[in-house]
């Protein structure tokens, strides 16, 4: 019965299956591949682990290193990377007036480049003590300043806008604050990360910390970093956002999942982002 099959056995069975397939290395992340965009922009995909945040990870690795060479190549070329389509769509929306004010993002913020640095430090605690993700900031502008309707957290328009804004920080190190007012949210996120959910009783750590580098069925498990999000997922053939991915992961443990945009997922997002502090924001990455 599935309930009694703990995660450790699942991973080991998958590894045995892969070994039988032959010619597939049970590899750790690729040891030498370098992520260079368009032959010019070098992104940091390996970073030292901060023992205060990730005491159980010797080194931080971007999810890019765990993907196969064809997928990795897709991200190295801004034309081949279909995520750039979402960035362009976001740029068009940026310049489009909306809401009762008849203004666009550009009217207050100028060019999208003005958003440089934002992806790298979110989520963060705002002036009212609330932990806000990028989606909260976007919707706040829309409802409070533009007189426009809020975008659904996982809606296409929201994903395109977060793709545009994230892209502006590409190459900058992830640097979310976990101290001061952020500390209680970070603790909450950390507790969630190590809590086992669902019939399969798996926590984030089960796959992404204890088993990173191993295979679960045919998936090469990464560290579950979100420095590459929002990402173009080959499976979905679309941009996938952070909370969208959290929902998918927890649902896959056969649990009743938290909702995108919930307090819980924002706390988890802060914690998971901090586990990647030092890795480069990848703008819109390509993942399977």
């Amino acid at each position, binding site marked *: 019965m599935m309930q009694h099959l703990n995660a450790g056995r699942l991973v080991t069975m998958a590894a045995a299956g892969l070994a039988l397939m032959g010619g597939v290395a049970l590899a750790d992340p690729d040891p030498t591949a370098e992520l260079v965009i368009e032959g010019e922009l070098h992104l940091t995909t390996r970073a030292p682990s901060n023992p205060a945040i990730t005491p159980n990870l010797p080194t931080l690795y971007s999810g890019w290193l765990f993907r196969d060479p064809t997928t990795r190549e897709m991200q190295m070329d801004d*034309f*081949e990377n279909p995520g750039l*389509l979402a960035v*362009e*769509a976001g740029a*068009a929306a940026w310049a489009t007036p909306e809401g009762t004010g008849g203004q666009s993002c550009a009217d207050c913020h100028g060019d999208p480049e003005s958003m440089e640095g934002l992806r790298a430090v979110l989520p963060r605690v705002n002036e009212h003590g609330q932990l806000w993700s990028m989606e909260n900031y976007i919707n706040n502008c829309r409802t409070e300043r533009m007189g426009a309707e809020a975008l659904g957290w996982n809606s296409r328009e929201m994903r395109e806008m977060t793709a545009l804004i994230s892209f502006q920080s590409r190459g900058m190190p992830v640097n979310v604050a976990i101290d001061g007012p952020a500390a209680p949210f970070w603790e909450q996120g950390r507790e969630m990360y190590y809590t086992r959910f669902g019939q399969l009783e798996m926590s984030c750590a089960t796959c992404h910390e204890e088993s990173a580098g191993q295979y679960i069925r045919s998936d090469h498990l990464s560290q579950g970093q979100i420095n590459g999000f929002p990402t173009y997922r080959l499976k979905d*053939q679309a941009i996938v956002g952070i909370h969208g991915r959290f929902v998918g992961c927890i649902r896959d443990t056969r649990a009743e999942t938290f909702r995108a945009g919930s307090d819980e997922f924002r706390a988890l997002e802060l914690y998971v982002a901090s586990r990647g502090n030092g890795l480069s924001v990848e703008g819109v990455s390509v993942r399977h």
Partner: protein
Amino acid sequence: MTDVRPRIRLPRSASAGDSITVKTLISHDMESGQRRNSNGDIIPRQIVNRFTCEYAGVLVIDMELHGAISANPYIEFEAVVPASGDFVFTWYDDNGEVYTATESFTVS
């Protein structure tokens, strides 16, 4: 379909008579007609079913696409550029819409 965006990539330069690599991408869900919605009903097919490229009025490639082409169709091919001219790219949607893009190319 709203917001269908074509993207084209051509090399920066080429000499007259060279064969160049042309890369095209267009944002389109390519709904195959194989998927079902949450009610169990088939989601109707809506794909780009044809793509053509001409250079200086000469046909380069004419491609018939079926539902097994991934969303955001990526098509890469080779074109000869005997002289400077315009590339014209055309995508035909099942719903009758036609999307086009034009790119000039100058040979050195």
